[in-house]
């Protein structure tokens, strides 16, 4: 009836005269190459930085050139959280929840002065830098940053992604604050250190 055995698909055949090329590479190099060039951003825009972010995504600057063709407005299908704008304390648990909803591997870009440090909003209502809530990979300075600045930050993030090694899984561990860690400073000590200057920007990010 013409039934022939199917060709063995688990064997790589190589015919030097066939004209097909092949390469050897490191697996994590290949994976990182793929990841770095298809970062899907999750825009978390709260202020004027989001307008610059939209300008970056639009035709003139065109984030699609960096594999960010698809804006992911759901954290479940996103790779990189771009926090553009100031984050008030009321939004802090929301931002952390969104970060926790993103699947690994994931990265975060803090776009602009307010997201990075609280900026000019050194008052009772605004989080002094989103790195007090979530880990941040790249900080983009500016008020707001121009699209060139954001794109430079994205290219830095791509560099960072390309340098990850499969042999070092620690980079993907999500760590909760560890009171036994050498780096941990209890809140009471932070309060004491930050007196008399109320702005504890450089103090609250010690694992709290």
């Amino acid at each position, binding site marked *: 009836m013409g039934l022939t055995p199917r060709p063995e698909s688990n064997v790589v055949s190589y015919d030097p005269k066939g004209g097909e090329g092949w390469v050897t590479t490191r697996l994590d190099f290949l994976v990182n190459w793929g990841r770095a060039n298809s970062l899907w951003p999750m825009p978390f825009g709260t202020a004027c930085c989001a307008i610059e972010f939209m300008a970056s995504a639009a035709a003139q600057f065109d984030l699609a050139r960096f594999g960010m063709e698809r804006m992911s407005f759901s954290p479940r299908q996103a790779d990189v959280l771009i926090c553009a704008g100031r984050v008030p*304390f009321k939004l*802090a648990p929301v931002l952390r929840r969104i970060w926790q909803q993103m699947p690994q591997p994931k990265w975060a870009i803090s776009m602009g002065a307010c997201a990075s440090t609280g900026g000019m909003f*050194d008052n009772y*209502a605004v*989080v002094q830098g989103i790195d*007090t809530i979530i880990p941040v990979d790249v900080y983009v300075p500016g008020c707001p940053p121009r699209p060139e600045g954001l794109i430079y930050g994205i290219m830095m993030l791509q560099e960072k992604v390309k340098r990850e090694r499969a042999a070092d899984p620690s980079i993907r561990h999500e760590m909760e604050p560890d009171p036994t860690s050498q780096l941990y400073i209890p809140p009471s000590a*932070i309060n004491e250190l930050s007196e008399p200057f109320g*702005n*504890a920007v450089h103090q*609250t990010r010690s694992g709290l």
Partner: protein
Amino acid sequence: MNPTVDALREKFGAAIQRADVVWGETTVVVERTRVAEIVRWLHDDPGQSYVYLSDVTAVENRDVEQPLEVVWHLRSLAFRRFLRLKALLPKGTPLEVPSVFPIFKSADWMERECFDMFGVKFVGHPDLRRLLMWEGYKEGFPLRKDIPLLGRFSRAEQLRQALAANPEARYSKEELSIADAFEDLPQDMRARLRSGEKTGE
């Protein structure tokens, strides 16, 4: 001077304490217990017809002897008039004024914001809760002069308290609760929910 002032003086007499004009805008200081009554008359009287409440807010002066002022901005669309009402709440007295919510539905969130920021209690408001700060905010009323700009607590404590908040907390009793609004849902949606279909989550 806005001609409404004379009409107010004629109608309410001593309840109108002071009236002055700054940059063409008339400010009337009224007896604080009669605010609702006065606003009701301004709204209903066909000769005044102040049908638009554009703002409710408060002012606290840096001088601690000065009373806290609650301000209402009213606009008469028919007569193209603007009127600013003020009620003075001297320090040491309870910060209470009557709510104008029964007259203007738009006063709802304005009064809630004013309560949130200054702690002024609007007597008669049906749902006087915080609007901008989250439920359970413990540092007081942030626009009052006795609150430092950075708040009362340290940054670390502020962040700890903020992160302890539930992001799914309901900020509106009616609108966000499917369970409470069940009877208002369309028939087909009620049938689907009864059969055990999950919504969200």
